[in-house]
């Protein structure tokens, strides 16, 4: 006997806010489509030569008869989806968000939205967190474009589970939807049982000194920022504004009234995104100081997810600094 005590088998560390479970939102889209494939025979999936990277390959393997490869032709894909919808299908199309929102914007506007067809647009690789591909593939204008088009709904889920639920929920909505998701693994901050309703924001954390309103991966950054603010005795409410349109104006007005200061956080251009939408709602309901954490009117570039988010000023410390600014403005009123 050596006398040494054998090490007890190590239980996997429970995920914590600072060491979260990491999962890709695009997988949530892929799995959401699988959920739908079984339940909804009218769901069909189109892709523009990006089956693997949008994870619609899961659906393609299971339901090959309802999978339509369109090739590199995003404009055609948007309108083919519209034609399919006109025959009673619920078409989901997938490509990179940069192309879905910009390349086929006119097709989305005239053929899909004006006709108000239930076309479901999956915009993959949203935001700067795409990383190495660089500016052309980092979609950062989607919210601005989509929410300006009548009849469109815009959903930016925060993690794997929410993307999966948003995908399933979109199929039940008889109008066109756009779902934005990302490439890289991102922290899981909701669970399979967290409620999700299109257009209804989720409060992730209570607080009344200020409200952090975020969407997408920035919900996690807001939660981390709130934890940091807590150590300074500041109680921040964190609101997951997963639906950009229709906007939960009631939740925003309540936050403005009860907290008196708001910071918005998004992985998107500052013009026309979440910050703009919240500011529009706030000035029309209960005006309070608002600070916007976003990409400030510049194109992305190649790099790693983390270093890009830091360089572009959209990590949790940026949210904390914005909170300090907005609280100073609140005090000065």
């Amino acid at each position, binding site marked *: 006997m050596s006398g040494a005590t054998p090490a007890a088998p190590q239980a996997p560390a429970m995920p914590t806010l600072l060491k979260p479970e990491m999962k890709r939102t695009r997988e949530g889209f892929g799995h959401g489509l699988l959920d739908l494939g079984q339940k909804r025979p009218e769901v069909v999936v189109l892709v523009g030569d990006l089956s693997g990277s949008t994870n619609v390959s899961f659906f393609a393997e299971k339901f090959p008869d309802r999978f*339509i490869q369109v090739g590199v032709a995003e*404009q055609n894909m948007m309108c083919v*989806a*519209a034609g*399919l919808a*006109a*025959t009673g*299908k619920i078409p989901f199309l997938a490509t990179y968000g940069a192309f879905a929102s910009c390349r086929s914007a*006119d097709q989305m506007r005239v053929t899909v939205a*004006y006709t108000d067809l239930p076309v479901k647009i999956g915009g993959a690789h949203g935001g700067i967190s795409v990383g190495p591909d660089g500016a052309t593939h980092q979609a950062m204008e989607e919210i601005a474009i989509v929410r300006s088009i009548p009849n469109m709904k815009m959903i930016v889920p925060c993690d794997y589970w929410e993307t999966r639920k948003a995908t399933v929920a979109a199929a039940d909505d008889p109008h066109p939807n756009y779902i934005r998701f990302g490439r890289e693994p991102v922290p899981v901050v909701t669970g399979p049982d967290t409620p999700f309703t299109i257009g209804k924001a989720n409060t992730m954390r209570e607080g009344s000194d200020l409200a952090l309103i975020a969407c997408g991966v920035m919900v996690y950054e807001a939660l981390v920022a709130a934890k940091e603010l807590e150590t300074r005795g500041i109680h921040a409410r964190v609101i997951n504004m997963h639906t950009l349109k229709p906007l939960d104006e009631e939740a925003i007005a309540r936050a403005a009234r009860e907290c008196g200061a708001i910071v918005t956080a998004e992985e998107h251009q500052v013009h026309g995104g979440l910050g703009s939408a919240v500011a529009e709602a706030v000035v029309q309901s209960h005006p309070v100081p608002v600070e916007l954490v976003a990409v400030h009117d510049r194109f992305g570039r190649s790099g790693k997810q983390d270093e890009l988010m830091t360089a572009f000023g959209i990590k949790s410390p940026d949210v904390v600094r914005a909170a300090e600014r907005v609280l100073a403005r609140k005090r000065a009123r």
Partner: protein
Amino acid sequence: MPRLTMNVPELQERALFVRRDIVALLARSQSGHSGGPLSSTDFGTVLFFHEMSVNPRKLDDPARDMWHFSIGHVTPVIYALMAERGYFPLVDLLGFRQFKGHLQGHPSKHDTPGIEVSSGSLGQGLSVACGMALGSRMDGNKRRVYCVMGDGEQQEGQIWEAAMFAAHYKLENLCAVIDYNRKQIDGDVQDIMGIAPLQDKWKSFNWNVLEVDGHDVAAILRAFEEARATRGKPSVVLAHTVMGKGVSFMEDDYKWHGIPPTREQADQALREMGTTLEEWTARLECHTAPEVAPGTGRSA
């Protein structure tokens, strides 16, 4: 399922009515396109009064054929065909482009029941028709899908994305028609941006290509018959037409692409067509309930 099967003289008469409607409604609206609607009238009439199964009484009839005008600006002919075919009363044509009417400048599904998908931005319609054809086939629905395009519209890149798609998926239930009137809003197509040889282009995209005189009703009937019998590939009918056909002072003049006739010009045009503006407007005004043209067709 209501498919009328009119013969050639009946179709020619119906086309004359449609042309008169177009001129009269444009005279009232004083806004809209004259040239393309008049060049599309003959094949449009063959589609609505012979070739297609449509059911104005039950718009979502699963047995209906589907039709889509990618050239949304030819609403005068679309609405005239719809009204003559019984989708809505003829009197409604006089509300074309008016705030209170239900006939938008470009086709709108939610304003005009019977329009399957709104259109108006060129180049998108063939893709829509591809989706309709593929969706119908996935459902085992035997319907056919018809898509009307313009020749100037062939300059849009998306047309060729859709052309590739339709041939790749062997959409034999899809039939496109191109109103080949050789004019577009800025001038002659060959001067603006040449599209010739158009037949070769479509052939090289693996389509069944049919060329017809787009004002020869008997030839148009035969072309649609041939398209219907074609297996394994989609068909396109290149309909050689004359812009402004039927109105002497509009024919073959690109300036009539996007403008309406004055009331005086409309009256002159209608006199060339054997009526007057007053007489034909009165016909539209007294027609307040839709009905399928009586006596001329038999159900197939």
